[in-house]
């Protein structure tokens, strides 16, 4: 039981990863693909944040100059702050491309550039 509890966060990470990855691979709607990608990335956030957690710790913000407490690690949090911003940047760019695709093709489902038109 404790094993399951201890690793549950990692398993949720795996599940979310699967869901996101599956959506990216199978959906043909481009917005849906981007949503899948966002879930996929969120899973990774969970992985990192889970690692930084320490038993009985608190957020790494020192209140009242009391440095003796147990704190969770700040480093994974810093990394994920960056990763979140990277995620939204990718999403914004992706959406802009989707809008342009809609304008160029009139649809956002099942677009393939390898078609034989030339």
């Amino acid at each position, binding site marked *: 039981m404790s094993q399951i509890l201890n690793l549950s966060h990692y398993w949720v990470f795996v599940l979310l990863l699967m869901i996101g990855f599956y959506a990216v691979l199978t959906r043909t709607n481009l917005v849906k693909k981007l949503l899948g990608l966002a879930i996929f990335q969120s899973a990774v956030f969970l992985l990192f944040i889970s690692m930084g957690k320490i038993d009985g710790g608190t957020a790494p913000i020192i209140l009242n100059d009391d440095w003796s407490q147990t704190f969770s690690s700040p480093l994974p949090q810093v*990394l994920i702050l960056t990763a979140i911003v990277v995620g939204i940047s990718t999403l914004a760019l992706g959406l802009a491309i989707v809008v342009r*695709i809609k304008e*160029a093709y009139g649809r956002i489902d099942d677009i393939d550039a390898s078609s034989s038109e030339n």
Partner: protein
Amino acid sequence: MDSVHLPALQVVVPLLTAPIVAVLRDARLSWLAAVVTSVMTFVVSVYIVQHVLAGAVLSYQMGGWAAPYGIELRVDSLNALMLLVVSGASTLALLAGRQSLTLQIGEERLPLFMAAWLLALAGLVGILVSGDAFNIFVFMEISSLASYILISGGPDRRALPSVFKYLIAGTLGATFYLIGVGMVYMMTGTLNIADMEARLAGVGDTNVVFVAAGFITIGLALKAAIYPMHAWMPNAYTFAPNIVTAFIAACSTKVALYVLLRMDFFVFQKNLVDHESQFTYLLMPLALLGIVFGSVAAVFERNIKRILAFSSVAQIGYILLGASLISVSGFTAAVLHLFNHALAKSALFLAVAAMGLYFARLRLQVLRGAGRKMPWTFAAFVVAGLSLIGVPGTAGFVSKWALISAALESNLVVPLLVLILGSSLLAIVYIGRIVEHLWFGDATDKAVQIGEAPSWMLAMVWLAVAANIWFGLDSSLPMALAQQSAIDLLRQLP
């Protein structure tokens, strides 16, 4: 500021000029600013190479914090050579590309585009100089996002779905890499590559590290367009603006490949139990399949840019093959080919861009007879094509030589030889087909009206060709760096 700052300057200069370029209103001025910045980057990389050739390993502590607490920039012979490739390709493409960019992007949007170009350059360079696994991820994203912008500028509407596909593949690849880095971090508590290497020693037999190595490899393989994860690449190269293709094709996948080599050989090789099997059973077969598939596909393609793109799939296979031999000579060959293939592809795509000034579509049918109308551009294309084939006197020959030598030392002599040589022969076929169409084909209506490319562009194309010949006749510079990096990285072999 003295030479200590060289690695930082390499990244900071283009990163800081990019915002300035973005707010410029004048297209010509933005191009000029980008050129100047790119030239400066190139000059810095030449300085770096000089230092590295003298035996130095440049290390730079960002923010003054010592590794592993701060981020370390670290330049040895391997990344020094890559810096030369990236900054050189960018500079040459920019110098050659004013007309082509104005034509395909338009004056109005050019400042933003040039800013994206500088960000792509800074991102690639930032990956190369970084000695920190997470920092590599950040710069990977800068370069990727900027590359998406560059490619989406292509005039054909199919550029958009192509770039979307690239965006999905690139993000998946980067995220896979991030997962791998996270797992390694979990087991070592550090993100500095050198520190990782040292601290992995105790945990090298755990599943986590093994899986982490796998994720990093797959993620980077996706970004490096290693067969069969290349699906995004041919379209992205084909529909990108022509000048962008000359820049991106020369270096972007190679930088991903560089990270792959760095992580696999530097971080994992010594530590991970049975790590060779990853190369023997996964990467080498993929490399061989890639060589075959890329060459054969190139033979059947009809668009000159797609032909060259598929040829890149094969060439990446060569590089990977050299590395998967896990020997000093093999690794040397891989690094040499990284360099030489970039030279050849950059020259080829620049020549194609020159043709693209007159032809909106670059199908062979359309281009028939164009070579006769622009003989100098055509001649440059042919010479660069010879370098791609590996004809002696060109840079491509040197690396092919090194690769065959390495194959002869391995225990798979005959199949490797047959493959390498066979695909060289296929390269003759697809380059030959282009030559025949362009030179002997009955001129199309369009081809009758055109003339030679602008002389400045032509000069740049020939500069790239001259580099191909120069490094084909005197390979001492890339050879010295490649050998040094092979010795550095493989010293870690058990």
